[in-house]
């Protein structure tokens, strides 16, 4: 008798769990589905009532219009170029510095590291205005320099690499030294291969945060040809965001969102492990 009640109770709990998750998952998915559906609707169907999830005459016209109105190809390339370059630089500079902070003994090491670390605590808005002035005085407004160089070595990446490298046994490094390995050789041949998982996490999050970055590009990029995709989407939004041409805006949102979602689905495991590891949103 008691067994039976426990069984039914478990079944009820199970049911509740699935119900909660399904309702949650649906509410997560609906906005994305609605975005894609709207982006392939002809205008008559967008304006028809009631709103329907079924598209009678799917069309790619909103995408054609989007790409003819704005150089979206160029914007995608801009974003891809900046995000890739910043990611590569971060992998190199952060692991290099992380190695020195983790395994070298040098004057002022801990103080410098603490200073770097404290930067993570400061909200980025505090640096925004002087950052803009510095970039302007360097003549970098409206150029890739302003998007890439200030972000090339993030403090949090150094922190991540240092934590990971500290767990590498010193014997490995000593052995390489005895074999006559140079300092850079140790970094390249011993350290780098061993910290690949940390670098994968760092790469994913750097790329993501750069791809989605908005405030900094908004401030330093004014020339239309230099826009990144979030900037382009925001321009699209402010020009057509309240008009009848919502299909095109949704097409823009799809173009911005889809590449990242596809990459995410491919590397899902690393993403979720990464966020668990570092607990930082891109």
């Amino acid at each position, binding site marked *: 008798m008691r067994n039976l009640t426990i069984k039914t109770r478990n079944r009820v709990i199970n049911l509740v*769990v699935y119900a909660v998750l399904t309702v949650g998952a649906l509410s997560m998915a609906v906005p994305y589905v609605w975005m894609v559906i709207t982006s392939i609707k002809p205008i008559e169907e967008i304006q028809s009532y009631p709103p329907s999830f079924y598209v009678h005459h799917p069309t790619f016209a909103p995408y054609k219009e989007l790409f003819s109105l704005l150089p979206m190809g160029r914007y995608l390339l801009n974003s891809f170029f900046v995000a890739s370059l910043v990611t590569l630089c971060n992998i190199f500079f952060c692991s290099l*510095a992380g190695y020195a902070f983790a395994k070298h003994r040098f004057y002022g090491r801990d103080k410098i590291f603490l200073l770097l670390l404290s930067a993570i605590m400061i909200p980025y808005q505090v640096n925004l205005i002087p950052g803009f002035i510095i970039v302007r005085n360097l003549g970098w407004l409206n150029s890739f320099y302003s998007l890439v160089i200030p972000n090339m070595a993030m403090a949090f990446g150094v922190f991540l690499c240092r934590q990971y490298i500290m767990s590498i046994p010193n014997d490995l490094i000593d052995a390489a030294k005895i074999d006559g390995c140079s300092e850079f050789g140790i970094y390249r041949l011993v350290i780098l291969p061993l910290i690949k998982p940390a670098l994968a996490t760092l790469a994913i999050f750097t790329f993501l945060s750069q791809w989605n970055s908005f405030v900094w590009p908004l401030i330093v990029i004014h020339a239309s040809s230099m826009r990144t995709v979030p900037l382009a989407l925001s321009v699209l939004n402010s020009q057509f965001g309240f008009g009848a041409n919502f299909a095109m805006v949704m097409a823009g949102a799809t173009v911005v969102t889809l590449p990242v979602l596809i990459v995410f*689905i491919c590397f899902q495991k690393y993403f979720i492990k990464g966020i668990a590891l570092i607990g930082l949103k891109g």
Partner: protein
Amino acid sequence: MKSDKGLLKSLIQQRYSYLFIAPTVILFCVFVLIPVIASFLLSFTRYNALSAPQWVGFSNYYNIFFKDPRFWKALKNTVIYVAGVVPISISISLLLAVAIDQKIRFKNFYKAIFFMPVVTSFIAISVIWKWLFAGEKYGLINYWLMKMGFNPVDWLMSPTWTLPAIIIMSIWAGLGYNMILLLVGLQTIPRTFYEAADIDGAGSWNKFWNITLPLLRPTLLFVVIMSMINSFQLFEQVYVMTAGTGEGVGGVLDCALSLVAYLYEKGFQRFEMGYASAIAYILFAVILLATLVNMKVVRSRFEY
């Protein structure tokens, strides 16, 4: 003199170390350290980005606190936003995390679905939700509200509903991130505790309240603080949701003006950069204060 020589010698010996950290440290100094200090100094000046800054002492801070109702509006909106998003988002995330932590099928599928907004740019999220919140007829949300017998809400054109709309959207967007962190916390709780409770005949609710919640406290504290820090920096959502209303960054009657939106308007649209720097430092102070208060409250509330 001798120690100087020793120092110099050791510096030469350590040249590789310095070489390795040099790129990071130089970039850090130019783009973080100097700006943080410069911003502090600028907050005591009047500066329009063209002519040299003029020292004005505390007058920016004085004007902000005593003569600027828009600042108070921005602060109020931001606090309402934080107070709305953080508790609700974390409660729902906790519910979802506990649900996913059960023995269920399609675990990774659910995780992936909830995680999608975390990898989507806030600009795209806001644009999508703007369409969901759209006027009386075409917006999906209003359509469903009407089907359930409620009156449609003019979400983004009415001063009352813009901020709640942004809060709803941001809760949705933050669920996955909080959920993953809480899930990690849940998985660190030893299963033996639950087994022992089972033997004692404890119910699910009892187990949640007396085992899960207390042991999850460090993770909860972390999630609350992270979520709060992020929420205080509200900007993109406001920027997108209010664009096209024909008003400033804050929307109709500044109904959604946040601290960062105000900072942006002052600094980069009106070029009152000294004033904007002062707002930035006040934001910094507010975040720091909220973090400290939180640590204290959570520590004392859940002490066991």
